[in-house]
């Protein structure tokens, strides 16, 4: 069999082609893995790349591409990839590669600024950037708001740093604000900061943004007042000199502090506006005026344009400060006032809360109140705030009988309060007036008048006519004696005794008649009548008492005054006596005495005449006639007796009794009359009398009276009048007192003047001390040298660090290479 299968040995064995896996070395995994790793790394790198943020800055000094980083909360979150200019070359555009996971937070509200080293009075900031170079600080809130690729960077660091929370507000001042970055300090702790000040529109003041950090924002409310504690203040007052500075740091750096002076008030809100006061007192004053309520602005127009009123001067109502003067200016309005005078237009601010209208009082409440008060006479008035400084203030006072005026609510620009005349006392003018009046006193004339009066009195007493008067009187008495020693007169007693015996007879007849009457029972009737009379007499003691009282009152009559007045009258009379007419009186008296003498002489002659000698005879005849008459009377009595006249008499006596019954009434009436008399205001009477005397005096002092002595008498009258007035009015005392006061005032002024140099010396001493203190801070002092030395050393250190930094930056290898 030929088809025997070939033996296995002969069958060509082809080696099976090894599979691909067998042929390929395991080592190939290495480059594959390497590639995968490389590609993965590359992809990962690309995938993790954040977005590019473009920030435009005004100034990007120190920002370098590839080197400057962006930080958020001091952690690097990006790197500057490119620095270029904007299209208009006005700004620098910085492209920052931001970390991807932060991109969403960087929204339109994000803020960026370049942090640079800054050396200021407040300290050194950004010191780390000296070595590491500047970096870009980014701040954004923690809520994602979509990525914003183009943002504008801030030129300076914002008030609220990257890791600070707080409330921003505005602080303004009419004068000046402290430098940027001045701290706001509360009880020594910095709780905020002030940014750089900017001038308001129109240049009326400056304002700056400020911030109070959390959690101190609760310390500030609308009742808070800020004031400047920068530097130091030097004040010289009643308490002596005072040098104030809050802390040494604030002396250099300045500072602002505040205090919340009233509770309540609204909490600090974003964008609130506060005023910065120059010192604590001003702040407190403002709070007193402003309180926490809104103040109302009003105007007043004063007729007088007086110096001394200034902005900030108080406005007072009843001694209570209710506001202040906001501003003042001249005002001319010919249409309104009818002339071209310059008037003082003041703008005042009043706080309704200070008047007591309540916390909720608003402008209308205040205006209603003022309108009511102005209708009652309330007016604005300028008055002295201080006598020494001459400062003025405005007070609102009630003026009696004020001219009609009302609150002009529609005044432009503010309601107008009517005003009244200023009440300004000028010390100098008053003192001058007193001295002028003393100077004007007519002392010379008074002395001359007194001398003249004494001369006149001497002349009167020494006049011959007055000395002759006693002689004349003696003559008159002699004549009278001669008359009485005449025989006829001596004979009169005898005739009289005859007449008396006749009368005795008549009485005897009457006695008989009375006996007859008694006989006829008239006695009882008479007794009754007498009893009545006795009753009536009982009332008499009362009467006497009344009279006594009247007399007592009369005693109480100011007789002294009366006598004073009388003596004054007499003095006035003396004045008259002193007059030439009065001096002529002695002469006239002499003449009168002469006449009287001649009258007496004629009387003497008459007495010695025959008719007169016959007079006693006639008298005797008359007496005998009387005797006859008595006889006929006797006869008549007996006739009456005979004709039962007694009965009639009895009737008459009864009538008398009836009449006596009426007596008590009469007594009562008399009593009443006396009582009335007692009630008569004797004092008034006396006063009236005094007045009368005064009137008399006045009458005597009247020009008409004075006209009698006429011009010759002028000096004496002057004296009398002056002495009268001096005595009556105590003018001399007053003048003395005035002079004494003036002297006291003068000596006080002298003392004050003597004190002034001392004060000046003290002032100079204080000034010297202040100057030495200040000069100690000056150029040559050790302190300054030390400070300068320290600053110079700091400068040197900074320069050294800067050199080191520059060297290292330029040549990092020098570190390695040791060069």
């Amino acid at each position, binding site marked *: 069999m030929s088809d025997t299968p070939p033996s296995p040995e002969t069958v060509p064995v082809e080696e099976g082609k090894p599979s691909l896996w067998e*042929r390929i*070395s395991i080592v190939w*995994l290495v480059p594959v893995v*390497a590639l995968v790793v490389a590609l993965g790394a590359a992809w990962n790198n690309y995938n993790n790349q954040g977005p590019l943020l473009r920030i435009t800055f005004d100034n990007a000094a120190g920002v370098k591409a590839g080197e400057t980083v962006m930080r958020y909360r001091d952690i690097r979150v990006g790197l500057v990839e490119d620095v270029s200019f904007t299209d208009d070359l006005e700004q620098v555009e910085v492209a920052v590669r931001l970390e991807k996971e932060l991109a969403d937070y960087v929204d339109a509200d994000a803020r960026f600024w370049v942090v640079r080293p800054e050396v200021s009075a407040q300290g050194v900031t950004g010191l780390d950037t000296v070595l590491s170079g500047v970096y870009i600080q980014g701040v954004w809130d923690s809520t994602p708001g979509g990525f914003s690729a183009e943002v504008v960077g801030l030129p300076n660091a914002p008030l609220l740093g990257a890791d600070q929370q707080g409330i921003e507000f505005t602080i303004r001042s009419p004068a000046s604000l402290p430098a940027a970055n001045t701290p706001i300090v509360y009880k020594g702790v910095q709780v905020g900061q002030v940014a750089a000040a900017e001038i308001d529109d129109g240049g009326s003041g400056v304002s700056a943004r400020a911030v109070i950090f959390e959690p101190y924002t609760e310390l500030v409310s609308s009742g808070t007042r800020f004031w400047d504690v920068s530097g130091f203040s030097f004040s010289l007052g009643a308490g002596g000199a005072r040098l104030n500075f809050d802390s040494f740091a604030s002396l250099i750096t300045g500072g602002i502090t505040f205090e919340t002076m009233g509770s309540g008030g609204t909490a600090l809100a974003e964008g609130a506006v506060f005023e910065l006061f120059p010192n604590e007192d001003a702040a407190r004053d403002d709070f007193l005026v402003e309180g926490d309520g809104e103040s109302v602005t009003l105007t007043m127009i004063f007729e007088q344009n007086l110096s001394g009123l200034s902005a900030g001067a108080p406005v007072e109502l009843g001694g209570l400060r209710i506001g202040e003067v906001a501003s003042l200016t001249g005002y001319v309005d010919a249409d309104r006032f009818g002339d071209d005078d310059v008037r003082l237009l003041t703008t005042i601010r009043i706080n309704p809360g200070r008047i007591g209208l309540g916390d909720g009082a608003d402008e209308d409440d205040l205006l209603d109140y003022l309108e009511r008060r102005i209708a009652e006479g309330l007016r604005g008035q300028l008055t002295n705030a201080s006598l020494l400084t001459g400062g003025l203030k405005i007070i609102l006072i009630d003026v009696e009988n004020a001219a009609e005026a009302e609150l002009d609510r529609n005044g432009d620009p503010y309601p107008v309060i009517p005003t009244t005349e200023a009440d300004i006392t000028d010390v100098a003018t008053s003192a001058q007036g007193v001295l002028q009046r003393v100077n004007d006193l007519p002392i010379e004339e008074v002395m001359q008048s007194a001398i003249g009066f004494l001369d006149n009195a001497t002349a009167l007493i020494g006049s011959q006519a007055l000395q002759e008067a006693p002689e004349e009187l003696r003559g008159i008495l002699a004549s009278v004696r001669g008359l009485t020693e005449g025989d006829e007169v001596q004979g009169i007693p005898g005739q009289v005794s005859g007449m008396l015996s006749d009368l005795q007879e008549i009485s005897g007849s009457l006695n008989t008649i009375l006996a007859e009457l008694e006989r006829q029972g008239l006695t009882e009737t008479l007794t009754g009548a007498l009893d009545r009379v006795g009753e009536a007499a009982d009332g008499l003691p009362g009467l006497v008492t009344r009279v006594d009282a009247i007399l007592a009152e009369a005693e109480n009559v100011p007789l002294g005054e009366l006598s004073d007045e009388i003596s004054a009258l007499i003095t006035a009379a003396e004045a008259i006596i002193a007059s030439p007419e009065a001096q002529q009186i002695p002469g006239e008296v002499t003449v009168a005495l002469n006449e009287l003498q001649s009258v007496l002489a004629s009387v003497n002659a008459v007495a010695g005449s025959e008719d007169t000698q016959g007079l006693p005879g006639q008298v005797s005849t008359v007496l005998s006639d009387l005797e006859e008459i008595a006889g006929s009377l006797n006869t008549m009595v007996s006739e009456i007796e005979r004709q039962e006249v007694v009965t009639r008499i009895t009737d008459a006596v009864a009538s008398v009794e009836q009449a006596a019954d009426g007596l008590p009434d009469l007594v009562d009436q008399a009593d009443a009359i006396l009582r009335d008399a007692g009630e008569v205001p004797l004092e008034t009477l006396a006063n009236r009398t005094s007045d009368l005397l005064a009137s008399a005096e006045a009458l005597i002092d009247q020009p008409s009276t004075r006209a009698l002595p006429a011009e010759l008498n002028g000096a004496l009258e002057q004296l009398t009048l002056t002495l009268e007035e001096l005595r009556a009015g105590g003018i001399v005392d007053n003048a003395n007192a005035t002079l004494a006061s003036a002297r006291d005032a003068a000596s006080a002024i002298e003392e004050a003047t003597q004190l002034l140099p001392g004060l000046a010396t003290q002032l100079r001493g204080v000034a010297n001390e202040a100057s030495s203190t200040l000069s100690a801070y000056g150029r040559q002092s050790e302190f300054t040298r030390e400070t300068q030395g320290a600053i110079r050393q700091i400068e040197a250190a900074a320069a050294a660090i800067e050199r080191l930094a520059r060297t290292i930056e330029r040549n*990092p290898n020098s*570190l390695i290479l040791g060069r």
Partner: protein
Amino acid sequence: MACRRCARVWPMGRDRCGRCGGKLSSRDTKSLQKVWAWWIAGIVAYIPANIYPMLVTNTLVSSSESTIIGGAVEIAKYGSYGVAAIILIASVLIPVGKFLAIAFLALSSVRGSSVSPGRRTHLYEIVEFIGRWSMIDVFVVAILSSLVQLSVVASIRPGPAALTFALSVIFTMLSAQAFDPRLIWDAERRAPNGKTP
């Protein structure tokens, strides 16, 4: 058949060296594959080694990162041409030369070359010798990093390039080792065979 480890010659057919226990093979069939694989890995590693910074120098003022070539150029700018030349030679010339040499050897063993096998073997020996010194850059970086650690003032850290450069060197060494120099002579013998009909 020689042991590649201890160089003792054994008769054919034995698969283990009787002296050192090493595996014996007449030819490494996958030698070229391994060479190319390591070579490619080396190239891959060499690229980032030149792109990424070799040294990160942090000083007080700044932080700088320098790549191999950048550093060499910078040093040359300061006038230290010698140092720059050393860096360039050690870090650029030698690795690149090695890549080229290995590639040349591998290619020539397959396709033949005008260069005599003796010279090629010599080249191979040079490559192998230099390979162990190629890590000099890495050593420099390692030494600097450990020496210059002056806290904030200055510190030097190895950059990512240091790692990849080391990897690259290792890969090229492995690549060179994977090459079987006998292949050079195999090609020499095959060539006359090929010429014979």
